[in-house]
């Protein structure tokens, strides 16, 4: 397939491209879902093709095709050039790429046990047993368990001479218990909501999850929520578990630091950012307990790779240092605006899409204490766990999150269980109120395999290392 990428680059240059890169690739996936010990779905998917990106007179063009015969590759490359030339019908500043040393390399996710070769019978048996264990709980309506495996093989070539082969493998699994009664529905998930815990790893990750061991507890918690009172509406101290911190980081830090959003390139769809290009080093984003890093070298992260889809090597970049904003996520096109070179965050949703700035692994650096110690150190407040819903405005300022369950904290102890908890806030105020970040003991590398961005829509697979956290004066119980 590297030959296909090279052929596309050569065809683009012949058609008049000043610069070209191409990604030939194959995506493979396997997904299994069991519900109440019945097979809900089992499917495998493969998709192959090539996408070629060109610069002509400083304007981008991109075209992709699933047909890999030479004539079609040539047509696609010529179409990319035509698209770039059409962009010149409007005035605009030409794109300038920051430099990168052309790499000739290969990289693959470290995998101990290829998830695609583990027998289907074993996977189905795991899910059936997890579902059966949940169904032991009286009053539970639905006991669902699922596994997802994904492998992306990419062959990258550029007119600068780069030739890179990469294989990224992801494995994930989770369980979900749903209780329905008296016009109410309550849900508990483990290890996290929305298909569980996905990591850059092989099937060995699934073996660590404890889906069967935790099944009965999760089922019991779902049923218990049915008879719990609603989370009250008040301004209070809020403690979040690591799983909810993941999405809090994703939505209110990860997206606003994308330099393409800051420059208005996503304005019409998902929106822009409350940050400005000149804010590096001068804006207080959070309290001094909060340090955040973008690290594409983090073991197990969904945003971990050898090279991004522009051939830039993976990096570890400080984003927030002791509460101060330091760096954006950038690409070769955008980095020059802030006087830098790309920090390797340009990734595409497979061969058929143009690379965009995407989060790598955006993680809060661990500080001190376990979740239990943070709760024990809290006199009054609410503890929320496991995301159920999210919403944030077009500049990533005003957010509202829902969680699956909450507990009242009184005198350092969890007392009353609440259902339907949610909270709202303003990004810099909320992060500025953070007065506890948990330590390495409860720091988990989570995966978000469903991050939407761009037009046409792309799905990004990104990671977040997160500890539990505590925030003061937060509005909870919005209704």
């Amino acid at each position, binding site marked *: 397939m590297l030959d296909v990428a090279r052929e596309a680059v050569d065809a683009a240059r012949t058609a008049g491209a000043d610069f070209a890169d191409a990604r030939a690739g194959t995506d493979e996936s396997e997904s299994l879902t069991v519900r109440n010990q019945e*097979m809900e779905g089992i499917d495998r998917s493969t998709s192959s093709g090539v996408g070629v990106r060109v610069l002509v007179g400083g304007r981008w063009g991109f075209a992709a095709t699933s047909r890999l015969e030479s004539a079609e590759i040539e047509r696609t490359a010529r179409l990319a050039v035509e698209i770039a030339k059409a962009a010149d019908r409007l005035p605009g500043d030409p794109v300038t790429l920051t430099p990168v040393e052309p790499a000739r390399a290969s990289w693959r996710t470290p995998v101990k046990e290829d998830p695609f070769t583990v027998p289907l019978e074993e996977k189905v048996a795991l899910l059936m047993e997890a579902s059966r264990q949940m169904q032991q709980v009286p009053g539970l309506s639905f006991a669902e368990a699922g596994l997802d495996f994904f492998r992306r093989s990419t062959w990258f070539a550029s007119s600068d001479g780069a030739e890179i082969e990469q294989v990224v493998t992801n494995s994930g699994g989770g369980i979900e218990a749903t209780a329905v009664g008296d016009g109410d529905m309550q849900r508990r998930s483990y290890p996290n909501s929305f298909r569980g815990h996905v990591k850059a790893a092989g099937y060995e990750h699934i073996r660590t999850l404890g889906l069967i061991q935790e099944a009965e507890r999760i089922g019991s918690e779902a049923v218990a929520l049915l008879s719990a009172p609603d989370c009250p509406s008040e301004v209070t101290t809020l403690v979040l578990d690591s799983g909810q911190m993941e999405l809090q980081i994703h939505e209110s830090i990860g997206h606003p630091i994308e330099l393409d959003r800051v420059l208005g*390139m996503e304005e019409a769809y998902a929106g822009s950012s409350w940050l400005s290009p000149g804010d590096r080093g001068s804006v207080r984003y959070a309290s001094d307990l909060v340090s955040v890093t973008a690290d594409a070298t983090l073991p197990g992260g969904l945003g971990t790779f050898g090279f991004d889809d522009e051939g830039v090597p993976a990096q570890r970049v400080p984003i927030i240092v002791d509460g101060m904003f330091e760096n954006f996520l950038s690409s070769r096109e955008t980095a020059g605006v802030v006087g830098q070179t790309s920090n390797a965050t340009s990734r595409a949703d497979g061969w058929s899409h143009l690379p965009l700035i995407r989060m790598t692994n955006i993680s809060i650096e661990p500080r001190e204490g376990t979740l239990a110690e943070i709760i024990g150190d809290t006199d009054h407040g609410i503890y929320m766990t496991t995301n159920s819903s999210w919403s944030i405005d077009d500049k990533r300022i005003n957010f509202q999150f829902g969680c699956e369950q909450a507990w009242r904290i009184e005198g350092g102890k969890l007392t009353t269980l609440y259902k339907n908890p949610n909270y709202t806030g303003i990004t810099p105020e909320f992060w500025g109120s953070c007065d506890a970040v948990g330590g390495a003991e409860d720091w988990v590398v989570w995966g978000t395999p469903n991050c939407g961005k761009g037009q046409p829509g792309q799905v990004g697979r990104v990671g977040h290392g997160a500890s539990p956290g505590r925030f003061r004066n937060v509005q909870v119980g919005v209704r």
Partner: protein
Amino acid sequence: MTSGSGPAPPGGSLLGPDEFRRIAEGALSISGADGVEVLLMHEWGGLTRFASSEIHQSTSREDTGLRVRVANGGRVGVAATNEATPDGAATAARSAREMAEIVAADPHWPGLAPAASTPVVDRFFEGTAEASPATRADAVAELIARCDHGCTAAGAYETQAVEVGVANSEGQFCWAPSTQASLTTVITGPDGGSGFAEIFAGSTDAIDAGAIGQRANDKAAASAEPRALDAGTYTVVLEPAATATLVGFLAWVGFAGRAYIEGRSCFEGKEGQQVAAPSISIWDDGTDPRTLGLPFDFEGVPKRKVDLIADGVFRGVVYDRRTGKEAGVDSTGHGLPAPNPEGPFPLHLFMGTGDATTEEMVRSTERGLLVTRFHYSNIVNPMESSITGMTRDGTFLIERGEIVGPVRNFRFTQSILGALSSVSMVGRDAELASEFFFSASRVPAVKVEEFHFTGVSDH
């Protein structure tokens, strides 16, 4: 295959029903299967994306997907490939058969769709399927030309063609092509104003880029220097794009058959009851020429009109074959590609029109807000049909029947059925309007007497 130095064709061309039949035969002819279904989705198109009044990301894509479902005694496996050949179909079928062999039988397996004729709907426009990058760029230039000095436009102009076919071992064979053109923009001004406008159509002929640009520009100019207003309960006039958010999420939490038969729908126990104002009627109809899409679903079942809410009374939900069997009714033609644990979904929603203009709704409002659209909404409590989200790109204060100025964006947290029960006026014109997460619905503007805003933003 075209080659040489002339203009490159913008994408694919129709495979056609005969070629689809030939490809599908590769899967339908495998041995050792009770039932085989082949779903073809061949799509191509281009998108010209612009920001800061420059074209910055333009793409073209062609892909052909096959999704093969194999059933043996109620044991079902599914495999997908984009190798659109008889061999590719056969390989996918064997993989699906292997999966079916190791799973337990689905007690609700309804079997594959029987042979049936499907409605004839002509929604394929060659000019749209062949739209060139230059055609889209010229339209974008026309839109941007409507920006006032100091304003900039962002957005996307997309042209798409798709052919979908379903063939199965029960003898069902259906195939249909369609095209779609959509132009969306947000125009922003130097003083914090922003305006939104969009159009969806089956053909590029219906796209008036200048009119879309003018509409967004006028909104941006009118929404400059928005003032802060307290959150609270307001009367609102929702333009069609905002109405589409309510209707789209109501489909998610209420109209999907699986949630309904499992007691998880917001309509649980409400069949035949008044759930909205008498002026509200909502239905799904994939055969209506005023919407986009195909005349059959992804299981090969013919689409038909389904009344969901009629004169404010809840009438029913949509089904695919599996949920239809569970409910003891026929599929309504709303199946999604297999496997689909979420169940059926209405993709062609309509809300009935009334007799008011938006101006009349504003004139009748003592104090309230005019909302252009909502942004990034999501579910708060599905069984209460409550959602949260933000206003965006043009929110205005109404006082004594007049728009008195722009206001900063609000967060709302609101029951959809609560809002629809509070509707006092319905617009006389409907338009296809998108929702961030869903397909476009054809809906009018509505006036809602009580709508709950629970927070404010800084812009």
